[in-house]
């Protein structure tokens, strides 16, 4: 039991962490939390199953194509729902514009693909008795994706000028604009990147979570919990928060049942937000007047 709590918990937690990072990447570039994060996760699974299972594509091609779709959706999100709102006076309208876009995509998916949960293909043919087969790939794939993403982001932010430009815009977009940084293009790039990370989460997690349209709402919420716990914009916080959430959820599932697990996660989420709105690791909020 312990083994399944840990393997399943870590795997689900890695998916949550990746969705949390998706939220963060978009937030850093625009101060906008976008409801499209869960949608990207859902699409990673659904599109993967569609390309590989239904259309019979090879797994690698399907994988690349899914991430490509994620990037395009990221760009569309920025252009259609974020950019117009950032210009308007009531910037919090982004909550509604991104939600509307996510729903539109979800509905198209529901009509074209169906509302059932479909199985996701096994991606890597591994002999179950070999070294790599000791732990099922559906458990280690999301964890691997999470590690690769974090390493990639570290490299981007620490080693490349464009990564530093992302950090600069996240910290002070006004000063960045004054320096002549191409804010709009950088924001677009961030949204494309978020699209790739979000679909990566869904694609690698889909052997476990299935290709299911209902994952959108679940990932939207459970992917945001690590952000709330770890502090907005903090990818490290999202990873720790995501893994902790995954393990807690699975442990509670096994030990006391699903009702309690769901209620407990929600209770913790509300309590943390009420006591420390800036997250367990974040710093205090700015002045108001």
């Amino acid at each position, binding site marked *: 039991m312990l083994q399944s709590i840990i393997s399943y918990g870590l795997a689900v937690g890695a998916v949550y962490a990746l969705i949390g990072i998706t939220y963060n990447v978009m937030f850093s570039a625009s101060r906008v939390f976008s409801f499209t994060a869960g949608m990207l996760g859902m699409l990673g699974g659904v599109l993967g199953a569609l390309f590989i299972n239904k259309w019979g594509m090879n797994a690698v091609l399907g994988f690349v194509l899914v991430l490509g779709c994620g990037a395009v959706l990221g760009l569309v999100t920025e252009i259609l729902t974020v950019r117009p709102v950032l210009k308007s006076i009531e910037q919090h309208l982004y909550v509604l514009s991104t939600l509307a876009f996510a729903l539109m995509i979800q509905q198209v998916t529901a009509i074209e693909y169906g509302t059932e949960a479909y199985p996701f293909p096994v991606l890597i043919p591994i002999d179950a008795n070999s070294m790599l087969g000791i732990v099922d790939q559906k458990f280690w794939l999301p964890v691997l994706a999470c590690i690769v993403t974090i390493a990639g982001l570290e490299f981007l932010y620490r080693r490349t000028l464009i990564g530093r430009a992302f950090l600069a815009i996240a*910290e002070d977009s006004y000063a960045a604009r004054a*320096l002549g940084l191409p804010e709009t293009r950088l924001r677009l790039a961030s949204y494309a990147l978020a699209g790739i990370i979000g679909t990566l989460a869904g694609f690698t997690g889909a052997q476990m979570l299935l290709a299911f349209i209902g994952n959108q709402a679940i990932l939207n919420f459970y992917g945001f919990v690590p952000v709330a716990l770890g502090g907005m914009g903090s990818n490290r916080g999202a990873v720790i928060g995501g893994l902790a959430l995954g393990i807690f959820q699975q442990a509670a599932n096994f030990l006391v049942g699903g009702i309690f697990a769901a209620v407990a996660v929600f209770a913790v989420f509300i309590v943390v937000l009420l006591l420390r709105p800036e997250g367990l690791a974040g710093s205090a909020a700015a002045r108001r007047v």
Partner: protein
Amino acid sequence: MPTSAPNAMVEPLLKISGLSAGYGKIGVLNGIDLTVGAGEIVALLGPNGAGKSTLLKAISGLLPRTGTVIFGGRDMSKAGPREAVNAGLVHVVEGHRVFTQLSVHDNIMLAGYGMRGAELAARVEEALAFFPEIAEKRNDRAVTLSGGQQQMLAVAQGLVRKPRLLMLDEPSAGLSPVLVDRVLAAAAQLRDAGTAVLLVEQLIEKALKLADRVYALARGSIVLEARTNEDDLPNRLEHAYFGQDVSAPLAS
């Protein structure tokens, strides 16, 4: 008093006319006319709330504005900050807003975003050479710098692109007198290298000592324009500040 001011104002480097700007419904600037010649240091003075910072923001395109901005013979009235920077019009905003989570070196690199690698590296070194004390800390994160060092870093950022016109917004704010002199000396060095400077400054005497010409701004209008070597300037400035003669702009 420095007297190296350009004499022939044939084609000023920056020429703005009828410039108005504000925040939402609040109009701050009404119809500003102003010029800066190549290689000239111009001080922009005025009481608090007069609109000095707003004017710089309107010139660099950080704020939407109406009116015309001609820079280097090009109409930049519609240009945003990015185009301004690329044309050589660089604005160092007030409050030493550097990126605290990045290293000193990376902060300066970012100011040259888009330039080619080798050239950028050389320019970063040149900018750092102006301020040895932050050059020493090139690999430290900017959050570890003092306010004065952050201000030097902000000015260094402004130097990377070898601007034709550098606009400095209160570079002395929060600096000790020694550091103020260092920052202002950098401005003088720039002028000698041919860069024009538009300087918003609270320390009037220092600004007057450095500048070739001066504009005073009050309530969103230019109320005085003069060369810094004219007689009776302090008195006229005081009048302009305390609003006794606002309605009649003093001649130049």
